[in-house]
């Protein structure tokens, strides 16, 4: 174990300085705005430029660095009159007019909340990758973290940290391989732990599946999957900052924690495995078989560790739901996300992260479109919203574009996140109405995974 690595935020410093210069150059048009010489607590857009009027972004966490990476037309509602760049320019111009000196500093991100969203970009299997930390309320990039090859992101349910399981090589994409778990402070984005995994416990290198790795419900252990040479789950103790052990498991995949020492997996035989690794032992048992060989469960189920609900669609949109507790798994009556008429008209789920579950409202969101049976990884243009209890259709949202991944914030008035790997853009919608509120562009090369903190309960 080694602490901590060279801080990445140097680039934030550079970005901040660059933005300050750009803002000064661009800001003359706004120099008539009310001066707000408060560099430690930047003013809102409305304060800086009263003529801009009300804006969704007003009242946000106005740090300069975020504006540098936010697109010029991002974070704007239909009536908003000011972009992030314009806001930053106005602030800088006002500061200049007030005689404020430019004092470049390393910024911190605002405290995590339920609307913070992480966008992981596997970058089409590139050797190095990036993750974007975004304030969903404003659509502003508030930070970034670097990763190695196909890193698996993790977010604590309480917002106290986020982490990743990653892999690097001594010569970029060749040479000696090092797998490690990296934990980040959610405000400074500094690594607070860097825990190396032993060679015999290397992780599974695979297209990023949200639940192939997980945090235990007490956020004290990272559980990661190993595919070869035999199915296993690695345990990394975050409290002690060290690799604990490799648990032998049956031919099962994915990890769904139900307690500090119990998690479930989906097995090739059609059952779930319950794994208890308390007290240095590994106890495995299997549930009943809950689906047939013809019912193909997708790679991207939704799961809430907060209430143990597992939502697992098939290629046709049949949804299996389970309640996972430390003691047992309870299976609900499956529901159909699509009507008989829709299925007959070639409507099927498709994309990458196709499923989202909102715990407080008990609603399921599923990406769907009309498609051939074997085009299940192509993007979709619609989201169906379903009452998880009754199976009733609540809404069918037309996204208006090709979307690969969705998720929702877990606050009472959730946002629907819709991510396009093709355009590298996150579109942020009102989950109730489906209306698009704002978007964030330039998110790497092929962003695919959306992760949030479920901390608003």
């Amino acid at each position, binding site marked *: 174990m080694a602490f901590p690595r060279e801080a990445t935020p140097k680039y934030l410093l550079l970005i901040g300085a660059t933005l300050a210069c750009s803002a000064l150059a661009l800001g003359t048009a706004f120099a008539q705005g009310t001066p707000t010489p408060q560099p430690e607590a930047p003013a809102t857009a409305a304060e800086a430029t009263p003529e801009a009027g009300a804006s969704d972004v007003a009242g946000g966490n106005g740090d300069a660095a975020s504006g540098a990476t936010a697109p010029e037309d991002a974070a704007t509602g239909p009536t908003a009159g000011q972009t992030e760049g314009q806001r930053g320019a106005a602030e800088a111009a006002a500061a200049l007019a007030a005689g404020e000196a430019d004092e470049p500093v390393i910024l911190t991100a605002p405290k995590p909340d339920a609307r913070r969203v992480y966008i992981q970009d596997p970058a089409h299997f590139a050797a190095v990758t990036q993750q974007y930390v975004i304030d969903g309320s404003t659509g502003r990039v508030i930070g970034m973290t670097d990763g190695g090859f196909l890193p698996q992101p993790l977010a604590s349910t309480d917002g106290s940290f986020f982490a990743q399981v990653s892999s690097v090589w001594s010569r970029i994409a060749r040479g000696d391989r090092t797998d490690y778990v990296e934990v980040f402070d959610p405000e400074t984005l500094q690594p607070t732990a860097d825990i190396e995994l032993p060679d015999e416990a290397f992780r599974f290198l695979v297209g990023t599946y949200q639940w192939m790795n997980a945090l235990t419900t007490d956020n004290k252990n990272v559980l990661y999957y190993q*595919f070869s*040479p035999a199915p296993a789950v690695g345990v990394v103790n975050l409290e002690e900052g060290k690799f604990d052990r490799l648990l032998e498991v049956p031919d099962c995949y994915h990890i769904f924690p139900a307690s500090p020492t119990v998690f479930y997996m989906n097995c090739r035989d059609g059952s779930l495995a319950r794994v208890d690794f308390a007290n240095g032992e590994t106890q495995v048992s299997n549930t009943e078989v809950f689906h047939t060989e013809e019912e193909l469960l997708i790679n991207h189920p939704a799961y809430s560790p907060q209430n143990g609900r597992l939502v697992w669609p098939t290629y046709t949109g049949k949804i299996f739901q389970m309640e996972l507790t430390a003691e047992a798994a309870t299976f609900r009556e499956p529901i159909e996300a699509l009507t008989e008429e829709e299925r007959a008209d070639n409507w099927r789920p498709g994309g990458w992260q196709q499923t989202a579950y909102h715990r407080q409202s008990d609603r399921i969101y599923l990406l769907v479109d009309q498609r051939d049976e074997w085009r299940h990884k192509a993007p979709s243009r619609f989201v169906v919203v379903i009452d998880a209890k009754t199976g009733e259709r609540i809404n069918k949202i037309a996204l208006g574009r090709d979307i690969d991944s969705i998720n929702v914030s877990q606050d009472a008035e959730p946002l629907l996140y819709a991510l396009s790997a093709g355009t590298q853009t996150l579109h942020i919608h009102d989950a109730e109405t489906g209306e698009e509120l704002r978007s964030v562009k330039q998110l790497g090369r092929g962003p695919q995974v959306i992760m949030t903190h479920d901390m608003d309960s």
Partner: protein
Amino acid sequence: MNSATTLRSILGALALSAIGATGAWAQEKITVPTEEGVAATEVPADAIVVNIAKMKYQTPELTIKTGDTVYWINNEVMPHNVAFKKGVVDEGEFRGDMLGKDEAYAITFNEAGTFDYFCTPHPFMRAKVIVE
């Protein structure tokens, strides 16, 4: 996909030829007659065979005698192989050649013991050879 064990066996054989000794390779737990798979038609009629089909080794537990040679024959188009984890037949791992349909791979077991093996791309395919 070649085998370090096989390579060492070949090098070892050359070394043994050179020095005329015989004891150095008595510790080898397995030897592999050919590094690459061969046509199933070349498998001797009286050979000990484990067929591979429907994503399974058809004889999940096979008992043989020391010095016996086992032939694995892949009966399906899905490629399969025979692999051992680190420490089973050597300090390192052993990864046999991938077999296409109707190809065979042979391993001679030189020591008594239980040898668990698996298919490299299909780790859920597992079986064992017990050598008495």
